[in-house]
């Protein structure tokens, strides 16, 4: 049963990829190769790669630097900074882009794209960097000092080395996020692969070409995975013992206090202050707009329905996937679990295109139905659900089920009375994560939404494209409120890590 359910989830993940390939072949190899090897493709590739490399590097520097300042220095108000630095994660990338461009329309092109994506994605490095720093045994640093290394050498040769897997993991997420992003690049009018594919499909109505280009995008994602994952996993950086850890020694900033404070202040104002301030500005100004106000409540209700459906489906799929991998561990179930995590590397656009290709051919009634959009969300955010459910299942060891069985209960009864109550809170977290991510999803929604149905993200997008910033602002505000919940919860955990490290 469990394995069957898991296999179904894996099949669902593979479905869009398979149809992407089938659709791309549609126009024949000649046409496809002409498309792939034309000059424009090379330009797109160059645009995408230089954006990914520079933004990822900037995110790494900002994320590690900020984490070090918060965790390892005598910076004033560390707990406040620990919270503020995470919060940009709670603002959808295209809303940060909107915040900047609506105030300063001349922000266009490469450097605007680099800036906006760096500001919205650096927390993906900051978070693991904080956790990584907290995991570095201070004794290692002390030993290095006693072996004749100065503070900076210790940072380079010991601290950074130890936190490298965590940082690289964060960089990988940044890279994948950059490859998948559409909205923010459209706002600053910067052409990457994703933007070009979207245009090709929406305006050119050329599904085959869009699918062929998507395959390049998937290849880029897999290249990023293949390039970084081995580094993330390399070596077992385990501590060699399990004794009491002592608090770290914080570096006295001294004369550097003011410059560091100014730097962090600038970062937080750019990533958080400008977008939020801009939203507030347009909310106030928007009151006098002459545009007919579409019903924000109807759109919010649509968003909630679709997201709840997706969250329920993704969580339901994640349970057999993780249960199979944890309880019936073999090559097949492990492979299924890996497959379920694969959508992490798939842009929403790619999943949407695959589903479009499938439904147009074999299931026309599904095309642009609510169910198809829900399935797309569920595939896209299945990795979030799997991670959440895995943590939940860890709280319900198989031994407890065995005890239940030995007390004369049937498996189903044991599951209901023992396992489910134990994993219920974790399932709730998984549900919430998928719900929140779905409710701010833009790219796949633009492609798959049923005719006449608008979500918060798509209606925001319509208004933004018409430069009706005042009308767009309430939608952005609502999305920020929704996605601020997990960011807030995360930042509270960060604050507690920062407190734990206090010496």
């Amino acid at each position, binding site marked *: 049963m469990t394995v069957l359910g898991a296999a179904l989830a894996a099949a669902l993940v593979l479905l869009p990829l398979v149809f992407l390939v089938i659709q791309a072949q549609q126009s024949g190899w000649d046409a496809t190769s002409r498309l792939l090897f034309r000059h424009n493709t090379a330009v797109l590739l160059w645009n995408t790669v230089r954006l990914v490399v520079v933004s990822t590097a900037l995110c790494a520097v900002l994320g590690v630097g900020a984490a070090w300042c918060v965790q390892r220095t005598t910076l004033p108000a560390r707990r406040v900074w620990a919270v503020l630095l995470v919060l940009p994660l709670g603002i959808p990338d295209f809303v940060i882009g909107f915040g900047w461009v609506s105030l300063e329309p001349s922000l266009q092109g490469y450097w605007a794209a680099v800036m906006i994506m760096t500001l919205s994605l650096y927390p993906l490095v900051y978070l693991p960097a904080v956790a990584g720093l907290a995991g570095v*045994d201070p*004794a*290692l640093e*002390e*030993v*290095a*000092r*006693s*072996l*004749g*290394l*100065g503070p900076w050498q210790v940072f380079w*040769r*010991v601290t950074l*080395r*130890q936190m490298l897997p965590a940082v690289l993991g964060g960089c990988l997420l940044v890279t994948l996020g950059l490859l998948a992003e559409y909205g923010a690049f459209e706002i600053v009018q910067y052409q990457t692969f994703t933007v070009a594919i979207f245009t090709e499909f929406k305006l050119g109505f050329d599904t085959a070409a869009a699918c062929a280009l998507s395959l390049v995008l998937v290849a880029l994602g897999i290249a990023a995975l293949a390039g970084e994952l081995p580094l993330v996993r390399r*070596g*077992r*950086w*385990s*501590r*060699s*013992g*399990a*004794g*009491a850890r002592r608090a770290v*020694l914080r570096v006295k900033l001294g004369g550097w206090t003011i410059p560091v404070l100014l730097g962090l202040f600038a970062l937080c104002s750019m990533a958080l202050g400008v977008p939020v301030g801009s939203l507030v500005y347009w909310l106030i100004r928007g009151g006098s707009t002459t545009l007919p106000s579409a019903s924000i409540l109807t759109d919010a209700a649509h968003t909630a329905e679709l997201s709840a459906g997706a969250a329920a489906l993704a969580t339901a799929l994640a349970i057999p996937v993780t249960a199979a991998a944890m309880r019936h561990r073999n090559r097949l179930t492990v492979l299924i679990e890996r497959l379920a995590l694969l959508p992490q590397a798939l842009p929403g656009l790619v999943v949407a295109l695959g589903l479009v290709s499938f439904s147009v051919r074999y299931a026309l009634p599904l095309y642009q139905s609510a169910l198809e959009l829900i399935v797309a969300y569920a595939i896209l955010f299945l990795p979030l659900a799997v991670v959440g459910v895995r943590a939940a299942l860890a709280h319900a060891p198989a031994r407890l089920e065995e005890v239940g069985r030995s007390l004369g209960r049937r498996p189903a009864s044991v599951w209901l009375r023992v396992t489910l109550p134990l994993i219920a809170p974790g399932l709730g977290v998984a549900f919430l994560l998928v719900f929140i991510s779905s409710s701010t999803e833009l790219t796949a929604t633009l492609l798959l939404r049923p005719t006449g149905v608008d979500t918060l993200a798509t209606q925001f997008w319509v208004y933004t494209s018409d430069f009706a910033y005042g009308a767009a602002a309430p939608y952005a505000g609502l999305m920020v409120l929704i996605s601020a919940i997990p960011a807030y919860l995360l930042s509270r955990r960060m604050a507690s890590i920062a407190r734990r490290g206090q010496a």
Partner: protein
Amino acid sequence: MSSDSDLWVLDLWKGYAAADPVLRGVNLSVPAGTQVAVLGLSGCGKTTLLRAIAGFERAQRGRIALGTRTLDDGQTYVTPERRGIGYVPQEGALFPNLNVQANIAFGLSRAQRRTKIVQELLELVGIVPLARRFPHQLSGGEQQRVALARALARKPEVLLLDEPFSSLDASLRVTVREEVSALLRRQGATTMLVTHDQEEALSLADTVAVLRDGVIVQQGTPAELYGRPVDAQLASFLGEANLLEATFEENAAQTVLGRLELHPDHTRAPGLKQGVVIVRPEQLLVRSSSADGDRRESAAGAGLAGTVEQCRYYGHDALLHIRSQQQPEALPLIARVHGEQALAAGTAVLVTAHGPVSTVE
């Protein structure tokens, strides 16, 4: 007899909360070439003391010096990397991403790495076949040896060891620490070892300094400490002890066990008539008695008649708790006897003491 690399700690104060300093004026000397153990319960400040000497913490008051070189006196502060003091932390703290060879070479310059230093150290601590292993592939004892070799690589003037054996299995602990101690002795290394294990301190060190509540209460050879502890608390901390009320005479003390000789170079306040002496369990001789003769001996002041109340058997020896017949309300005496001499509870015995005893406060 002062040398250039004696380590001195003079009136060292250090605290995290102003009202409650951890170190309250520590005085300690580690003469060059000797092994000193700092012994104390957890929370007594011994790790803070070690970290201040290594340079990871700064002194608030007082002075730490190596020979004539001041390391820390509240104003001057030499950073850890310039002190020339080696440090072996608890559990070794090997760099998990480096193999054994690279761990040992970590503090060496490029030029030094090309020499035979690393090879010699591998040979010295006996782990040549492990050179290319990673820390997680080593046992606890092997990790300790690597950590030691890594600290010795830079030829430190003083080596600090922070509870280096406490994380090892009981079976391994004794062998590893004896090997390490012998090795350091052969090297003529000046070492300071911090531990909470009195057996470890007494068996390894040339001198033991006992740290309690932020001050060194006594520093001396293991025999001095065990035989002549400054107070009752220290006496009990260093091992089982019988504390007996005594009336002092010229060079002796009159106790329930009869007249006991006082330690010759024992100083006690002149004119003190009443006090307490300490008698170690192994100073007591126990034999079973049923004959009337023994009771008469006891009455004559040559011993104490009692009953075995409890016997704890350890194999090589046994500890007996003996209740006095005359004073059943007093604390039982504790005697250490050979394993084969373990007596069942209820056995009537006669207890006598031998060897000099000393007074405690």
